[in-house]
């Protein structure tokens, strides 16, 4: 499905509110950009497009994008009074590229675990990125994953079943 095929009226109430909130934020930041929304059964993807470079909105390691996502989520939840679908904010396909890289890293690590029999500990990541690692790594047969440690240093361990470290 192409994003430009989606018109706002096809979005759920949550999707419309989330899109409007992000558009309002960009407007008040005086950043000339528009927001396209794509709604799927389990998530809503808001994509920022602009003639300007979006580096400033993405931030170091995507931190500004993450901040916008947290805020759009919190405001949308407050307005709809329900948890609703997962909301993702993207700019210039940044998330898509990062997610593809993460998946690749996770699969490589999982294959290494199968080959060597030794578990691999990934670097600390936020919940969103850990979820991507969990999903990609467990696609490799005979692999299991656990998260351990405290936020914001929580990390995924990729290992063989029965090798799981104790999270304490």
């Amino acid at each position, binding site marked *: 499905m192409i994003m430009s095929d989606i018109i706002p009226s096809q979005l759920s109430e949550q999707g419309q509110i989330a899109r409007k909130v992000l558009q309002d*934020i960009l407007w*008040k*930041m*005086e950043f000339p950009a528009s927001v396209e929304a794509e709604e799927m059964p389990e998530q809503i993807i808001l994509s920022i497009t602009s003639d300007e470079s979006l580096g400033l909105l993405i931030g170091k390691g995507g931190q*500004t994008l993450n*901040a*916008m996502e*947290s805020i759009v989520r*919190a405001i949308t939840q407050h307005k709809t009074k329900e948890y609703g679908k997962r909301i993702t904010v993207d700019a210039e396909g940044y998330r898509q590229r990062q997610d593809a890289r993460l998946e690749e890293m996770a699969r490589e690590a999982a294959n290494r675990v199968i080959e060597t029999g030794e578990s691999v500990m990934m670097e600390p990541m936020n919940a969103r990125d850990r979820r991507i690692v969990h999903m990609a790594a467990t696609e490799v047969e005979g692999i299991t994953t656990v998260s351990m440690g405290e936020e914001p240093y929580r990390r995924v361990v990729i290992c063989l079943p029965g090798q799981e470290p104790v999270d304490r």
Partner: protein
Amino acid sequence: MKALLHYLITSLVDNQDAIDIRESIGQRNIAYVVYVHPDDLGKVIGKNGRIANALRILLRAAGAIQDKTIWVDFNRQPSL
């Protein structure tokens, strides 16, 4: 900048009448203290300070567009 901050805070809290935003403008920086109803402080700070940090990062990015450094602090409305 204040309009952006006001919009964000208004959208997060229940007691919108209790919002008070104090602004002090320097040459290269702007500092804000946001006062909200005591019942709403948790909403603007969030679990582990998640929302407060996100607000600070977003305001910093908005400030960078205007070449300003932005500081934001959150507090409960002392009169309530």
